C-alpha cells in the first residue's frame, strides 16, 4: 500500500484523530474528577470560605503579582539587551537565564538558602550587620517566586523584542525619537503580545510555585503558606484531607481561568498588526 494512496491518507487521518482524542480525554478527566469530587463532597464549599483558605489565597495573589511586577521591572531591560547584543557568549548568558526553567524548583529553593539563608553567602553577613533574616518571611516567598518565574517572562520578552525589526527603531531615531521614547512607543507596542504572554506565564508560574517556597520560605499560615503550600498541607492533614485539597485546587483553578480569560479579552489579536505582517510576508 503506497503512502500516497487515499486509503493510507484515511488511515493516517483516523490515527491522528484518535491520538488527538485520547490526548484531549487525558487532559479533561483530571478536571472532571476534581469537579465531581467537589460536587459530591459537602464540605468543599465550607472549606473554600474558611479563614485558612482566604489567607492563603490573599498571600498567593499579592506575592505572585508582586513577583511578576518585579520580573517585569528588572527583566525587561535584561531581555531587551539580550535581544540586541552581539556580545560574545550571549548563548551562554541566555542559557543561564533559562536555567531556572529547566531545573526543579527545589533546586532553586536550595540555591536560595545557600545565598540568602542564615548561613548563606549574603544571608549571613546581612543577618550579622542588620539582624534581617529573609527565610520564613513573605519576602522569601516573593524571592522564591521571582527566581523560578522571572525566566519565563525574560525568555518571552527576549524573543518578543528580537522579533521587532531593528530598522523600525533606527527609523524612529532619525525621526528625532530618543532611545527611551523609541523603546516605549515602537519596540514595546510591537512586542506587546509576547510581553503579555510572558507576564501571564510568569504570573502563572509564580502562583503555582511550591518547591522553592517550601524550602526557602517554609510554610506558616498567613505568613508564607501560599495556595499550593496550603493544598499540600491540606492533603497531608486527615481532618481536611482530600476535601480541603479539592476545594483549594478548585479555587486556584477558577482564579487562573478567570485571569486567562481576562487576558484573552484584553488582548484581542490586533487586526492591523496581523494584516501588516501578512502584506509584508507577501513581498
Amino acid at each position, binding site marked *: 500500500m503506497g*503512502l*500516497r494512496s487515499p486509503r*493510507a*491518507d484515511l488511515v*493516517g487521518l483516523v*490515527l*491522528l484523530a484518535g*491520538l488527538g482524542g*485520547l490526548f484531549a480525554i487525558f487532559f479533561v478527566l483530571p478536571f472532571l474528577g476534581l469537579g465531581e469530587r467537589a460536587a459530591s463532597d459537602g464540605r468543599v464549599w465550607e472549606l473554600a470560605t474558611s479563614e485558612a483558605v482566604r489567607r492563603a489565597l490573599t498571600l498567593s495573589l499579592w506575592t505572585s503579582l508582586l513577583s511578576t511586577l518585579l520580573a517585569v521591572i528588572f527583566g525587561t531591560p535584561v531581555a531587551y539587551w539580550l535581544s540586541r547584543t552581539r556580545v560574545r557568549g550571549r548563548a551562554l548568558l541566555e542559557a543561564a537565564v533559562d536555567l531556572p526553567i529547566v531545573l526543579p524548583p527545589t533546586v532553586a529553593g536550595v540555591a536560595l*538558602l545557600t545565598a540568602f*539563608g*542564615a*548561613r548563606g553567602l549574603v544571608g549571613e553577613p546581612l543577618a550579622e550587620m542588620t539582624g534581617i*533574616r529573609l*527565610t*520564613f518571611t513573605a519576602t522569601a516567598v516573593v524571592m522564591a517566586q521571582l527566581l523560578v518565574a522571572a525566566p519565563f517572562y525574560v525568555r518571552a520578552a527576549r524573543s518578543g523584542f528580537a522579533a521587532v525589526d531593528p530598522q523600525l527603531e533606527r527609523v524612529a531615531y532619525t525621526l528625532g525619537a530618543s532611545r527611551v521614547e523609541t523603546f516605549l512607543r515602537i519596540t514595546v507596542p510591537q512586542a506587546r503580545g509576547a510581553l503579555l504572554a510572558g507576564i501571564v506565564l510568569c504570573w502563572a508560574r509564580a502562583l503555582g510555585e511550591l518547591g522553592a517556597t*517550601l524550602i526557602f*520560605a*517554609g*510554610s*506558616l*499560615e498567613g*505568613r*508564607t*503558606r501560599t495556595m499550593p503550600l496550603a493544598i*499540600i*498541607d491540606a*492533603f*497531608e*492533614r*486527615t*481532618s481536611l*484531607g*482530600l476535601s480541603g485539597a479539592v476545594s483549594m485546587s478548585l479555587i486556584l483553578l477558577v482564579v487562573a481561568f478567570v485571569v486567562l480569560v481576562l487576558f484573552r479579552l484584553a488582548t484581542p489579536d490586533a487586526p492591523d498588526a496581523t494584516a501588516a505582517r501578512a502584506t509584508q510576508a507577501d513581498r
Partner: protein
Amino acid sequence: MKRFRPLWLLVLAAFALFALVSCSGDEEPESSPTPTPTPTATTTATADATTAATTEATVTEEALSGTIVVSAASSLTDAFTEIAAAFQDANPDTQIDLNFGSSSELASQIVEGAPAEVFASANDAQMAVVVDAGLASDPQTFARNRIVVAAPADNDLVQAFEDLAEPGVRLVLAGEEVPVGDYARQAFANADAATPGFSEAVLANLVSEEANVRAVLTKVELGEADAGVVYGTDAAISGDAVRVVDIPEDLAPPASYPIAVVGDEPSDVAQAFVAFVLSEDGQAILASFGFSAP
C-alpha cells in the same frame, strides 16, 4: 498535507505503540507478584494440630516470597531501612518496598487506596484513621520515642525548654497533624499549668510548619531556625550539627509507634514482616537507632 513523510509516520507509529504498551501496563498493579497465599501454605495453616510437626516443617521449607509495600513514618527511615534489609537477608525471595512520609500523609494515602501492606505510624491517632476506615486491625505498639528540642550547635539562643518562649526565637515545628508536631504542641500546653501563657508565647515564635520531622531537622541543621522539636532518634542521627535540649518527661510522655497489617487478606510476607519488627532482632535494630522498647 499532500505528502506523507515516512519518518513522520514512523514517529506516529512509535507513539501509538508506546501508548498501547503503557495502557496495557496500567491494567495490572505495579507490584506484579501479589503475595497471595500459596495453596500449600493455606492447607498447612488450616491443618489441625495433629500435623503440627509437619506444618512447622512445611513453613520453614516453603520459603516466603513476594513483594510488599511498607508505609512507615519518616522518623523510622533509618531503622526500617535496616530492618527491611535484615528481613530480606533472612527471606531472600521477598522484597520490601519502603515508603516513608509523615504518618498523616501515609494514612490519607492508604485511605485513598494507595498500595500498602504494612503501616507503621508514629502515633496512635493516625493508626486509628486507617483502622477506622476498616483497612487494618489489631495495631501493636512496637517502639517508643521521645521528643526533644533540637538547636543548631553554633547557636546558643535556646539552652532550655523554657527558652522557647523567649521573644525572637525562630521556632520550626512539624504541622499540627504530623505526630511530632502534635506532641510538641501537647508539651507546650502541658507547660501552661506551671507557666500560664507559655504555649501562646512559644507558638508566637513559630516561623514555619514543616511537612515532616526530617524537614524540621534540616531547617535546624542549616541554622535557619533557632530551634525545632523533633524525635530524639532524629536528633541523634544528625550528630554534631545539632544540640539536643531535653523536654521534661512529665510534659512530653514518650510517643508510641503502632504497626499493623493493611487489608482484609494480609499476605504471609506482611505478617512475617510485622512479626520480625516485634521480634528480638527487630527490637535490637530499633534500639540501636535510639528507640525504646514498648
